[in-house]
């Protein structure tokens, strides 16, 4: 082609296409992230693939790609079976592609094969990265450290009213066999797709604003092996859960692996109904504990009462016994005193009698009659007892008195002793 020669746009595009086809191999294995994916009514899949500089958060390359309907059906089924997720935005895939160039649409890639093991590995790595980051932040167990109310009644639910699991959860909670009354409140959120992260965080945000009105938060959605749980392998959701002021329980329908959100939750369950059953059992436990406590209380109180009664009876017995003992001792003392008294009275009387006897006998000796009986006499002159011869003169008449009579004499002479 010579300089200055003019060509049409169609010719230029055709030229580029020819050059491309000439110089490029038939196919490439390419790694790229799915930025957009949609299917049309015919079942053809249209994608927007990008390469990202994650450290700068910048897109470094972008291309359109197609998977034709027949291919797409088998590829997507296989991919889903291998990775547990469908082809969707946000994941990185390794695919076999042919470069195509169309005059009207420009460059695009036609995907003929996808290696799911690459995505699985990539997701696992990403997941590990999230876990590592949460661990480094020191927040992995923060929500688990909260304590659940003994009777969790006010339950804030993050789910979609359309989700099958949501209705199951409500049914299990309200129709529990014990008649416990719960107050569930739904905070509507998108539970799958690329808006999941933002939507769930917004719902959690609304609950958090009125956290004091709830006992726990639950994140639930219906399960199934083919549903994509990897939206919950999100650092932002997981971090929000770790910082949440209420215990967060999850029941997002996983069969095998836990999502990162499950891992940081207060407790994770396989299904929404399992969460509801746990809440009912928790309440049953609480009621049983209360019944036990009430019965221990009764036993304790009865024990205290009966020991107080025993103490009282013992005091009563001791008081009565002591009082009776004192009375008896005093009585005995009294008896002893009386006896002593009696004994000493008798002694005194006897002694007095003896003294009296002695005195009597002494007096008996002094009686003049007695004395005269023993031969002594009494001399009188003119009726007057004479004690010595001093009052007597010769010729005086004296009378000598005997026990048995008297004699009258005349004094011849007197003399004195000495």
């Amino acid at each position, binding site marked *: 082609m010579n300089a200055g020669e003019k060509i049409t746009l169609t010719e230029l595009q055709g030229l580029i296409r020819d050059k491309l086809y000439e110089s490029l191999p038939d196919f490439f294995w390419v790694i790229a992230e799915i930025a957009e994916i949609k299917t049309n009514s015919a079942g053809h899949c249209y994608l927007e693939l990008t390469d990202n500089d994650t450290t700068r958060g910048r897109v470094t390359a972008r291309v359109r790609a197609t998977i034709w309907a027949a291919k797409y059906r088998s590829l997507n089924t296989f991919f889903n079976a291998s990775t547990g997720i469908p082809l969707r935005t946000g994941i990185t895939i390794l695919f076999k592609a042919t470069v195509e160039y169309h005059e009207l649409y420009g460059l695009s890639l036609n995907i003929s094969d996808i290696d799911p093991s690459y995505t699985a590995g990539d997701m696992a790595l990403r997941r590990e990265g999230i876990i590592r980051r949460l661990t480094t932040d020191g927040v992995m167990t923060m929500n688990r450290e909260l304590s659940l109310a003994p009777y969790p009644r006010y339950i804030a639910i993050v789910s979609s009213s359309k989700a099958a699991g949501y209705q199951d959860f409500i049914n299990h909670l309200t129709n529990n066999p014990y008649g416990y009354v719960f107050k569930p409140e739904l905070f509507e959120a998108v539970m799958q797709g690329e808006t999941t992260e933002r939507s769930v965080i917004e719902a959690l945000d609304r609950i958090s604003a009125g956290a004091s009105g709830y006992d726990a938060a639950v994140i639930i959605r219906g399960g199934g092996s083919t549903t994509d749980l990897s939206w919950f392998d999100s650092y932002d959701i997981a971090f929000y859960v770790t910082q949440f002021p209420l215990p967060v329980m999850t029941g997002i329908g996983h069969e095998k692996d836990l999502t990162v959100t499950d891992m940081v939750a207060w407790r994770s369950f396989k299904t929404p109904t399992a969460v509801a059953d746990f809440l009912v059992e928790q309440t049953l436990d609480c009621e049983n504990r209360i019944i036990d406590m009430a019965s221990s209380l009764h036993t304790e109180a*009865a024990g205290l009462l009966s020991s107080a009664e025993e103490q*009282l009876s013992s*005091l009563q017995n001791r*008081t009565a016994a002591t009082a009776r003992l*004192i009375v008896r001792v005093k009585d005995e003392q009294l008896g002893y005193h009386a006896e002593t008294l009696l004994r000493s009275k008798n002694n005194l009387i006897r002694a007095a009698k003896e003294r009296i006897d002695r005195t009597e006998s002494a007096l008996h000796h002094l009686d003049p009659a007695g004395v005269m009986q023993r031969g002594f006499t009494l001399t009188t002159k003119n009726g007057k007892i004479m004690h010595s011869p001093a009052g007597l003169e010769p010729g005086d008449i004296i009378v000598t008195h005997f026990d048995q009579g008297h004699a009258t004499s005349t004094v011849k002479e007197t003399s004195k002793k000495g």
Partner: protein
Amino acid sequence: MAKKEIGFNEAVKGIEEILKNIEEGEPDIDRLSEDVKKAAELIKICRKRLRETGEKIDGIMKDLKS
């Protein structure tokens, strides 16, 4: 004049004091019947309190079970 009701523990302490007095002290016959009467009154008060408490507890527990 309304007298403040004597407490259970106070009453038991009273009984014990009286008992200690007649058990260990020089017994005084003039005071003995007075002391025993006092102790008996205190015991009666305690009994009454125990019975009332027991009935109250049973009532409360019955309330709980209904």
